[in-house]
């Protein structure tokens, strides 16, 4: 039996390496239970008072019934919500971390020839987030831990940065997870740093004006030609103009990625001149400096929460001490000021590293005066409304997608714990990292380790971060880099799980090992494909 298992895993890794792996073993628990009832739960709503002792029924990915004193359907699995608070699943209004764009190596030959492509210039309206999104269960878990169950993803590099998609964090299969595709077009004011037009901020502004005009002109000519092909010269096809047309005509929203308040003014000017349907993404946290203009333009704002002062700000020009002081005292007040002025605000994770730091930033904004109901609105109903999903997301209401968070305590106050996350009706239980019974760690594995699989003879690296008993890390393998969290260290034993994607498949791996100094020895299990033994050595340095 053991031998057969070993043979299987050798075959498995061989298939992974050749890109042919199939994952027949990827059954998840959530597929088996499709009806849930959360009983006696407190429901927090973005508007209006909380509902106490309510029942939430979820069926086939949607909220079926929500209210006080509702009967529990006989086929439902019941969750006791008496110590829990229910929130609509939070939405990251605009992020980048789910996106894995191919790494662009700059070709020095271009530098010498001066022949740059539109990609080099940062003009990539053809770039679709949908094509490059990287959804994995381990990433989902990180989002769930801080209450997020949906996110908009958009390339953010360059001038016409690309087109966004909005995903429900419910399935690693992007086709199933997708809510809306090619939703927004990103517009940035970043010069490409190569000597090619437009290379300066003023050039970018002029370019944007011209390209909006050109795309409208192209569409006008094209439609005239399609209407009557006689006597009219047809326009030359241009994929940029084609992709831009719906945005240039205000049919679809653009997102302006504004690095400071001056970018916001520029964006408002462009939006007014071309009558754009637009959202401001306030990367510089300075939107509160232009409140009258934003109100006049009826602008919607995506607030980021990195709270770094832009280089153009006076604080930055006055030196490090002033800048740091402002980053602590002035910039975190930005969302509160906007909300107070009645400007519709949502949160964007751009400028933060991960869901953890994103939520930390949001809590900073709450501490700096943003009322928690407005913060919740900025994470639920507002982003849903900004991007046309208000009928499907943002509140816990019958008929909406069952994105739900059950937490101990208030998630918009520090130290709340998300216990369960439902993404499109799929339940995910967030285990507490330290709650597992175990002994105090006697080892610290923080650092890089080289793993060798005994049977497959396959090598990869894992970079561990150990904080007391909690273990997280990143695997660097020939298929790419994969993160994991939620690992546990007990005495000198470690265990962790991760999902990797290889050969177009999601593969769950369960590692367990015993550490001895700078070496470890253990087993990796891959569902029904069997297991393999491994050894690992600490890489010095």
């Amino acid at each position: 039996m053991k031998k057969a298992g070993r043979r299987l895993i050798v075959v498995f890794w061989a298939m992974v390496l050749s890109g042919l792996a199939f994952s027949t073993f990827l059954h998840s628990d959530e597929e088996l239970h499709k009806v849930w009832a959360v009983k006696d739960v407190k429901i927090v709503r973005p508007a209006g008072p909380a509902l106490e002792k309510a029942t939430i029924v979820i069926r086939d990915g949607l909220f079926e019934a929500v209210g006080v004193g509702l009967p529990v359907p006989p086929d439902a699995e019941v969750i006791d919500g008496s110590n829990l608070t229910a929130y609509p699943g939070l939405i990251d209004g605009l992020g980048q971390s789910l996106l894995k764009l191919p790494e662009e190596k700059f070709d020095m030959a271009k530098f010498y020839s001066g022949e740059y492509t539109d990609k080099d210039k940062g003009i990539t309206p053809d770039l679709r987030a949908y094509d490059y999104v990287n959804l994995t269960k381990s990433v989902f878990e990180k989002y769930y831990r801080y209450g997020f169950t949906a996110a908009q993803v958009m390339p953010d590099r360059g001038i016409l940065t690309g087109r966004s998609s909005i995903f429900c964090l419910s399935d690693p299969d992007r086709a199933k997870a997708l809510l809306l595709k090619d939703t927004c077009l990103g517009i940035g004011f970043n010069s490409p740093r190569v000597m090619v037009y437009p290379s300066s901020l003023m050039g970018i502004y002029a370019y944007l004006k011209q390209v909006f005009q050109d795309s409208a002109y192209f569409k006008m000519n094209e439609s005239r030609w399609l209407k009557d092909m006689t006597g009219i010269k047809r326009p030359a096809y241009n994929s940029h103009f084609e992709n831009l047309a719906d945005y240039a005509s205000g049919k679809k929203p653009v997102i302006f990625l504004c690095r400071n308040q001056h970018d916001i003014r520029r964006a408002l000017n462009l939006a007014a001149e071309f009558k754009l349907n637009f959202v401001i993404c306030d990367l510089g946290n300075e939107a509160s400096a232009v409140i009258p203009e934003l109100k006049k333009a009826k602008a919607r704002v995506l607030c980021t929460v990195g709270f770094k002062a832009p280089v153009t700000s006076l604080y930055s020009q006055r030196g490090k001490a002033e800048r740091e002081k402002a980053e602590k005292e002035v910039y975190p007040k930005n969302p509160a000021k906007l909300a107070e002025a009645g400007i519709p605000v949502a949160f964007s994770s751009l400028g933060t590293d991960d869901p953890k730091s994103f939520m930390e930033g949001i809590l900073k904004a709450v501490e700096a005066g943003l009322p928690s109901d407005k913060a919740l609105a900025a994470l639920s109903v507002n982003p849903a409304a900004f991007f046309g999903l208000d009928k499907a997301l943002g509140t816990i209401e019958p008929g909406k997608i069952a994105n739900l968070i059950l937490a101990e305590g208030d998630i918009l106050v520090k130290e709340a714990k998300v216990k369960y996350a439902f993404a499109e009706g799929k339940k995910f239980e967030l285990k507490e990292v330290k709650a597992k019974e175990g002994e105090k760690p006697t080892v610290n594995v923080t650092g890089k380790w080289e793993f060798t699989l005994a049977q497959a003879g396959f090598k990869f690296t894992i970079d561990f971060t150990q904080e007391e008993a909690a273990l997280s890390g990143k695997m660097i393998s020939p298929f790419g880099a994969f993160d994991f969290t939620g690992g546990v260290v007990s005495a000198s034993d470690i265990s962790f799980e991760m999902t990797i994607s290889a050969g177009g498949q999601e593969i769950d791996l369960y590692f367990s090992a015993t550490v001895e100094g700078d070496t470890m020895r253990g087993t990796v299990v891959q569902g029904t494909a069997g297991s393999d033994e491994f050894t690992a050595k600490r890489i010095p340095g």
Partner: protein
Amino acid sequence: MKKYWILSLAGLLILGLSATGYAAEKSLLLKNANIITASGENIAGGDILIQGTKIVRVGKNLPAGLDIEVIDLAGRWVMPGIIDSHSHIAVEGDVNEMGDLMTSEVDVRDVINPEDVNIYYALTGGVTSIHTMHGSANPIGGKGIVLKMRWGKSAQEMIFQGAPLTSKWALGENPKQTNFQGPGRARYPKSRMGVEAAIRKEFELAKDYARQWKDYEKKLEVSQNSKGKIPAPLPPKKDNRLEGIADILNGKLWVRCHAYQSEEMLSIMRLCQEYGVKLVCFEHGLEGYRITNELVKYGVAISTFADSWAYKWEAYNTMPQAAALAAKRGVLVAINSDDPERMRHLFNDAAKTVRFGGMSEAEAIKTLTINPAKIMGIDRWVGTIEAGKDADLAVFNRHPLDPYTVCMLTMVDGKVYFDRARYLDDRKKGEEEKKKKEAEAKTPKEKKNGAEV
């Protein structure tokens, strides 16, 4: 070295910055000043009466009233606010659009950074208006703009209303890119003749563009009159670059042309005359003293440095006396900064033309005031101390051309935007407060340590 100096100054200015821009609610009377009017005779022990944003009277022993706030200048020197006709401050992002040869579609108005601390530094040197524009990478570049140094106001509010928009051109080494050499930067033209040919070609393109629109309008009219029999023609594609060139050809934009050498200046003057282009000024124009007759004939000014001779080969053939000589021959001359640091002591630069070129003091003051005002098309409002003009003033402790002079107070639109005494006072207070805070931060810690012991 320069950078460190700027940084330390930035640190010192922290408090002073917030204290500026206080306004005179009532009428304001500046008394007992030595007034350098830049329009006529200087007035020793004179007064200036300001109402709102304007100077209403200039003279001796002007009566004070109950509703008039009086500032006794006690013999200090007042001159018209200094006007810097060639500057690149308050421009956000790259100061050059290097990506293309002709960039008449770019506009500095789109990238004004009103938070650039150099605006405040300008005020500390008595500067009240500037012409800010992009660099000299393009034979025909983008649009420049005149700003008033209304520190603390928005970009829109800083724009000098009524001032004509400018078009920045460049001849010589920069557009032919000897100064931008490097891999991947090969760009036509590579010679001075190429630069001029490129400009001529662009003019022809713009003329053709205008012709296409005219044809279209004619055809459109025919179509409209045919009552649907003749279909409406397709309009030509709107090209913002060629529209910028068209605005140059129709005189809407005032051309400011970066040039050093006399031959290229002569040549471009002829070209501009041929096409009816409003060429108002050569930027730098270091060899302008050699072609003064032509400059006067074509009515072209020079906006130049007081020194900076021979720092690159196209600047060899000039001399310390150049600005003074050109002025003596009737050329309109402005002394400019081209640099945020030099901007703070332009009065020293004007003094150099007196010391080295033998220019009269009155003429030297004009190179910083009414002359640049004329070049920038704002002389109706600023540049002299006269009734009816904007109350843009700079107050000095000594004659502004004195090597030891210090600018004490700068006023824009009748509002004090820089007051050295107040600034120094604020700085002192700030330092004291900082010390106090530091002391407070130390005290509880010591106590805690004491308790632990």
